[in-house]
C-alpha cells in the first residue's frame, strides 16, 4: 500500500475526482450493481474507505464479490473466488435485479439528456445505418428501470450532454416527473449524475437535471458551456470536497494494481 505521506494531494485528475465523488455517493451496507471501469473502481474505493459493508453485485452473477485487487473485466476469476455466491446470468437479472433488491445501479452514457435518459446504442445517421455504432444496451435498461436509485457517471461536454438523444437505450425520467410511474417502473431513477465538472441532481418537482455542486476549480460557466441544453443551476451550488489524501492513496493503489493478483496487498 502506498504510504500516505507520499501521496501528492495537491493535484488530481478529473477522473480521480469523479471516481472519488462516485465512491462517496455509496452508503455503507448498500447493495450496488457494478459495471466494469469507473463504477467498479468507485465501488471498490468505497468498500476500502467509508463503506466496508458495501455489497458488490456484478452482472456476471457474482453476488457479494470482495476482490482484493481491481478486476479488469466484469467476469474476472477473482470475482467468483471472493463472492458470497455465484449465480447464473439469468438468475442475477431475474431474482436479484428485477425485483428491486439492488439499492444502487451505476450507468455510463454516450449521450445523456436533461431528464437523465441515456443512449449507448447509435450516434448519427439512423439505427440501421448509424454514423457510430456503440456497444448497445447490455444490462443498462433494466438497471435503469429496477435499481432503487441510479448513479450516472459521465464526462460533461456538448457531444454527450445533448438536447435530444439519437436513441433511448435506458430510461431516466423520460419526458418528465410522471413518466416512470406511468410506465410501471419500480426503481427511483437517476439520483445523481456525477461528471468531471460537478454533480447534477433531478429537480424534485420537474426531474430536470440541475447543477447542484461543482468540483474544485470548475465554474458554472464551464458547466453551461459543456451542456447541450440550457442548464438549470441551483441557486447556490455547493462545492465538492477535494479528494482526501486517504482517498487518493487507496484509489491510486487500486489503479496501480488493477488486474494484478500478485501486487494486491
Amino acid at each position, binding site marked *: 500500500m502506498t504510504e500516505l505521506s507520499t501521496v501528492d494531494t495537491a493535484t488530481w485528475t478529473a477522473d480521480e475526482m469523479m471516481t472519488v465523488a462516485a465512491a462517496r455517493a455509496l452508503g455503507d451496507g448498500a447493495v450496488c450493481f457494478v459495471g*466494469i*471501469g469507473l463504477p467498479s473502481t468507485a465501488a471498490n474505493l468505497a468498500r476500502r474507505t467509508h463503506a466496508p459493508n458495501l455489497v458488490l453485485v456484478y*452482472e*456476471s*452473477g*457474482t453476488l457479494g464479490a470482495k476482490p482484493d485487487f481491481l478486476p*479488469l*473485466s*466484469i*467476469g*474476472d*476469476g477473482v*470475482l*467468483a473466488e471472493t463472492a458470497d455466491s*455465484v449465480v*447464473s*446470468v*439469468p438468475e442475477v*437479472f*431475474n431474482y436479484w*435485479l*428485477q425485483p428491486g433488491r439492488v439499492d444502487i445501479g451505476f450507468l455510463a452514457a454516450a449521450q445523456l439528456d436533461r431528464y437523465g435518459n441515456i443512449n449507448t*446504442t447509435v450516434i448519427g445517421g439512423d*439505427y*440501421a*445505418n*448509424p*454514423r*457510430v*455504432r456503440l*456497444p*448497445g*444496451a*447490455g*444490462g*443498462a*435498461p*433494466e438497471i435503469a*428501470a*429496477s435499481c432503487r436509485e441510479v448513479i450516472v457517471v459521465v464526462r460533461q461536454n456538448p457531444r454527450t450532454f445533448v438536447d435530444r438523444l439519437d*436513441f*433511448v*437505450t*435506458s*430510461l431516466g425520467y*423520460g419526458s418528465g416527473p410522471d*413518466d*416512470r410511474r406511468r*410506465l*410501471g*417502473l*419500480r426503481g427511483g431513477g437517476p439520483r445523481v449524475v456525477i461528471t468531471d465538472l460537478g454533480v447534477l441532481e433531478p429537480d424534485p418537482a420537474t426531474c430536470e437535471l440541475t447543477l447542484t455542486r461543482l468540483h474544485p476549480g470548475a465554474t458554472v460557466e464551464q458547466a453551461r458551456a459543456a451542456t447541450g441544453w440550457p442548464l438549470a443551476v441551483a441557486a447556490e451550488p455547493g462545492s465538492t470536497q477535494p479528494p482526501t489524501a486517504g482517498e487518493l492513496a487507496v484509489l491510486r493503489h487500486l489503479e496501480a494494481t488493477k*488486474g494484478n493478483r500478485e501486487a494486491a496487498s
Partner: protein
Amino acid sequence: MAVIVPLHQAVAELIHDGDTVAMEGFTHLIPFGAGHEIIRQRRRGLTLVRMTPDVIYDQLIGMGCARRLVFSWGGNPGVGSLHRFRDAVENGWPAPLELEEHSHAGMANRYVAGASGLPFAVLRGYTGTDLATQTGNIKPITCPFTGEVLTAVPALRPDVAVVHAQRADRAGNVQLWGIIGVQKEAVLAAERSLVTVEEVVDELDPRPGAIVLPAWALSMVSVLPDGSHPSYTHGYSVRDNDFYLAWDAISRDRQRFTDWMEEHVMR
C-alpha cells in the same frame, strides 16, 4: 447422448452454412477455439447469437461468416469498440450485418424460455426505451391476473450452441465452474450442442460452484486445451488481457486484421 470427437469433426457435423449459432460464455469460458475452427471451415451466412459478442464474434464477422447478429452488448470488454463489428454495421464490410438487438435481461430470458421449451419469456424490461422500435421480437404482454403490462420476448432456439468447459468424463458428462453465465441455458435451448473441454477425466469429483451438463443433453464434446484463450478457464488459465488490449489495434485496420487472421487462425 454426447460423443467425444475431434473438434474439426464436431464443427463439420454440427454447424452448417446458414445455421443459427449461439456461442456463449460471460467473459469466462468463451469458446474461442471452436470459433476459430468455424472460421477455418469457412462457414457462411450464420446468424450469430450471443449476449456479449466480443473478440471471437469480431473475428467471425470480419472473416465474413455472419449474416446476422442477435446480441445485447457488442464491445471489447474494458477496452472499447469491436472494430470489425462496427465496420460491418457502419460500412457493410466485408458484408452487411443485420442486427437484432436486446438487453442482457432480455437475451438471458430468451435463452431460459428456449431451455424451458416455452415459446416466449416475460420480464420487466425495455420499458420506455427505443429498443422495441427496431425489432418485432419485443412485445407487450398483459398479466391475466393483475392486468399489469409487461414485456415478452420470444425463446431463442439456436440450431447449435457452442460452449467451453473445464472438463468432461469419458461418458461425455461435462462439468464447469466459476462464472457459469448462461451456458446451461444456451445448450439446453439449442437443437444441437458442442462443448469443448480442457480435458477428459475418469471421474468428475464434485467441486464447489460446479454445475454438470449431463451427457444425455449434449451432442458432441471435443477436447481442446486452452480452448477459451484469450478468455480464460477458471482453474486452468487466466484472462489474457494483453491480447484484448492488443486486439484494438489489430482490428482497426481491415488489412492488418486479415493478415493477423491468416497468420494466427487460418493456417
